[in-house]
């Protein structure tokens, strides 16, 4: 493994999957598969458990919340993402077949998953990728980040009953999907990325993206003028969790970004600094995501060398183990593969959603019910990445 080693914890905690506790620079093998876990909480007199979800209004994915409350006030929450748990058969499949499954774990973050998986395979087999492929992958990931952040900002608007900006942003998200569709042949990047290869046509992306970003800028400024909207976000769900990942971490002032500290897809030749906010509340998370939309557009504009790129497919064979970590729109996304003659013997994925759920559980304490949706949506957690068991 080029970027990872087994051994003592080193660097930031990324999460746990089975017996792997993954840090930014190392993998620690433990026997307890639930070493990274939430706090046990017991009801105090006067409290009851309000069950919200999984099948109810206001939630995009199937997730259940047990809200411990004496009424209105939330004293504790347990998040259960396993109501619609999917079991995906990957082990024993060829890399190409496994990739088809991996990129469907979370369609919204398909490219992050497929690039992380492909990079882990490339690490296992010692395949070097060219700068052109790396830049194309960066472009794809930034495009995915824009779409994902637009979706999260849209969802933050919904609890406030802001139908107009919500639908306007939904329209912009759709426009980004159409750009992706034109560039890859699929709205969710499916089959556009492979081991040591990538298929992407970047022609005409920048002008179309500029139009979208300008329109978003207008909506974003409008939202910042709305005191009603800001009141619902500011001081709501302050999260100062040390193990936060992605935009939620950057919203609490932590300079945490796999684009800065992961060797998998290096941004070293890109003019880029993480967007930071200090407030650590829903407003800060909304701000970080909004500002990253502009930043990602800027990164895409800087990648002038990427055009209509279609590298040749390479045959995948050989054995080895590899690991990769990329900055998905939600945060650090980690993949580990163990190959045997081109067949996946073992595959492990750590989604940033798990650590961010723990942070969300901390942040909601002391808030009231009406704050709940704003806070939950501002974290941009994707339950589909957690409620999955890879076999």
């Amino acid at each position, binding site marked *: 493994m080029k970027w990872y080693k087994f051994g003592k914890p080193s660097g930031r905690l990324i999460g746990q999957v089975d017996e792997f506790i993954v840090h930014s620079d190392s993998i620690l093998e433990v026997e307890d598969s639930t070493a990274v876990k939430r706090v046990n909480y017991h009801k105090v007199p*006067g*409290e*009851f*458990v309000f069950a*919200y*979800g999984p*099948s109810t209004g206001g939630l995009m994915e199937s997730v259940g919340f047990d809200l411990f409350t*004496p009424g209105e006030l939330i004293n504790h929450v347990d998040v259960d993402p396993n109501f619609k748990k999917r079991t995906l058969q990957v082990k024993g499949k060829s890399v190409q077949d496994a990739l088809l499954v991996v990129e469907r774990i979370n369609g919204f973050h398909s490219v992050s998953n497929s690039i992380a998986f492909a990079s882990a395979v490339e690490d296992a087999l010692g395949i070097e990728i060219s700068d052109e492929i790396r830049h194309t992958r960066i472009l794809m990931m930034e495009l995915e980040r824009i779409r994902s952040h637009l979706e999260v900002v849209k969802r933050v608007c919904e609890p406030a009953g802001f139908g107009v900006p919500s639908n306007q942003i939904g329209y912009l998200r759709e426009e980004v999907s159409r750009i992706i569709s034109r560039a890859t042949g699929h709205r969710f990047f499916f089959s556009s990325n492979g081991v040591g290869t990538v298929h992407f046509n970047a022609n005409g992306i920048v002008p179309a993206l500029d139009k979208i970003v300008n329109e978003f800028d207008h909506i974003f400024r409008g939202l910042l003028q709305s005191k009603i909207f800001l009141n619902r976000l500011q001081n709501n769900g302050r999260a100062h969790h040390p193990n936060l990942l992605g935009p939620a971490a950057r919203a609490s002032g932590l300079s945490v970004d796999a684009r800065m500290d992961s060797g998998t897809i290096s941004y070293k030749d890109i003019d880029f600094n993480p967007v930071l906010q200090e407030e650590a509340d829903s407003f800060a998370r909304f701000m970080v995501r909004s500002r990253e939309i502009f930043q990602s557009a800027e990164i895409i504009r800087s990648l002038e060398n990427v055009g209509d790129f279609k590298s040749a497919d390479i045959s995948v064979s050989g054995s080895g183990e590899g690991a990769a970590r990329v900055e998905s729109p939600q945060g650090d996304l980690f993949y580990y593969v163990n190959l045997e003659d081109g067949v996946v013997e073992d595959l492990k994925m750590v989604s940033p959603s798990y650590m961010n759920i723990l942070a969300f559980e901390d942040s909601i304490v002391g808030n*009231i019910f009406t704050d709940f949706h704003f806070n939950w949506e501002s974290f941009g957690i994707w339950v589909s990445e957690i409620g999955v068991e890879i076999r």
Partner: protein
Amino acid sequence: MLQLLVVLLFGVAAILGALNRKLGYAGMLVSAVIFGLVQFTPASYLSYFSLISSFVWVFVAIYSFSYGEHYGKWLSSMLPLTIMGMALILISTNYLVLITGWEIMSVPSYVIIALNKKEDMPAAVFMLFSEFSTVFLIAGVAYAYSISGTLNIIALNDYLPMLLISLAGLTKMGMTPFMISEWLPIAHGNAPANASAVLSSTMTLMGVFVIMRLVFLSPLVIYIGIFFLIIGGLSIIFAAIYAYISENMKMLAGFSTIENNASILSAIGLYIIAFSPTLRSFILIVIIIFSLAHSLSKTGLFLAIGNTGGEFFGEITGFSNRWNNVGTFLTTISLSGLFPTIGGLGVWMLLESFFMEAYSGGFTGIMAIIVGSVLALGEGMATGALLKVLSFGNLFHRSNRGRRSIGSFTVMALGGFLVFMLSISILVFPSSFISGIPGVLIFNGFMITSKFGSADFGVLSPDYIILLISVFSILAYAIFRKPRHRTVPVWNGGRDIADIYTSYAYSNNIRLMLRKILRTRIGNQNQSITVMDVFWYAMLRTGKAYKSVCKYITLRFMNSSIGWYMIYMIAAFMITLIISVELI
């Protein structure tokens, strides 16, 4: 003489109660019926208080046959005795008889509270405030004697006796200028349910009675009216808030008592400041209707709470049945000021009075608008509190397998009586207040109008409301027959129901929203949220500060010093002498 003999019947009932529980309550029942029949004269305004009291005592006596068998015979003895004190107050024509009745009413109540849980605090609190009220009463009587030269209760040419005796009444009603809440709920909430009903309904009614009695005999000064309005308004809103957040059902009912009494006090205040004879005669009816509604409904509420088998919402053990639920429903909607119960009429009339006074303009008009608004707010909050009793105390989370008992029958009968009282309430209205608008099918005789100046206020008469409800219900049944219904399982987000909504959570929004007033604290280890009764807290702090000052003076200046003690005695004697001479 006959009246005194009837009062003594309650004493006989007390003696019987000491020998046999049911015999005592039977004696109480007979005495109450005879007392009501002897005392009530339709033309005498004050005799309505006797009638209201009789109604309450009759229902309590019937209920008591099947209630509290585990209580000793002391309860069936002390309860008629405390009622004897009230009866003595109601028949009194002499201040000495009034004071005697006041004390006879208080002392057995103290014993009931003290023996109920064998706790010192609630009984001591009750006795402390009872004696406060006695001090005010004696002071008022002394001053009345000094200006009239007689202990007979006669017309006075000074308002001060009325003010002092009103303070005695206010204390009994759970209100004083310095202490708005808490003592009454603590005391009444710690008695057996039947005794709580008597204390909360008729003991507080005695406060209203003595105030009204002195109001009729004294010159009316606008400042006293404003004073009553301010005390009433403050008490309404705070009592309603504390009722809403209370987890002890009996204390909730106690706070509701304060809220109701404060409404009556506001009406009395309005009576004093109103100059219009029409409005004054309307308010007099308001006071009687509201007192009737409060006394009967509060009795029903305490009896219904008694049927739950617990004091806190979380410790309800008793079974329920349909009779009990219907009775509790009617009781709580009456206390919420809703038709078709007498409470609906009482609240409508009370608010109507304030509207009318608002039309008179000027300072009193502004006062009427402010207090009327507070009253409406308090009524809304009280409705929320009573819905809590109805839903968490009776309808939800309580097994409906209970057998029909005398207790549940009494609650049901009381609920029905509230509707019956509404249907005959038109009898207390002078014909000048009865009219109609035939053009819109409100025939003459089916509308109550206040006939106040150019602006007429009115409402459908209670009979017409009951008639309309009955006719349309029968019509709906005739057309649609028995409603078809289907039962579906509760949807809980796709999960099994693992927990239930609590009464604590029901009222927690107010704890959080009014955190400045309630001093809401979050994060206690055992109880996630705590609140504080700021008035009770202030009183305790004042008491502690007073104790500290006394201790300091005692130790610093008077510690074994006969000289300082003599100076203190002489100074105290001289001050008392000067005040007495001034008063005389």
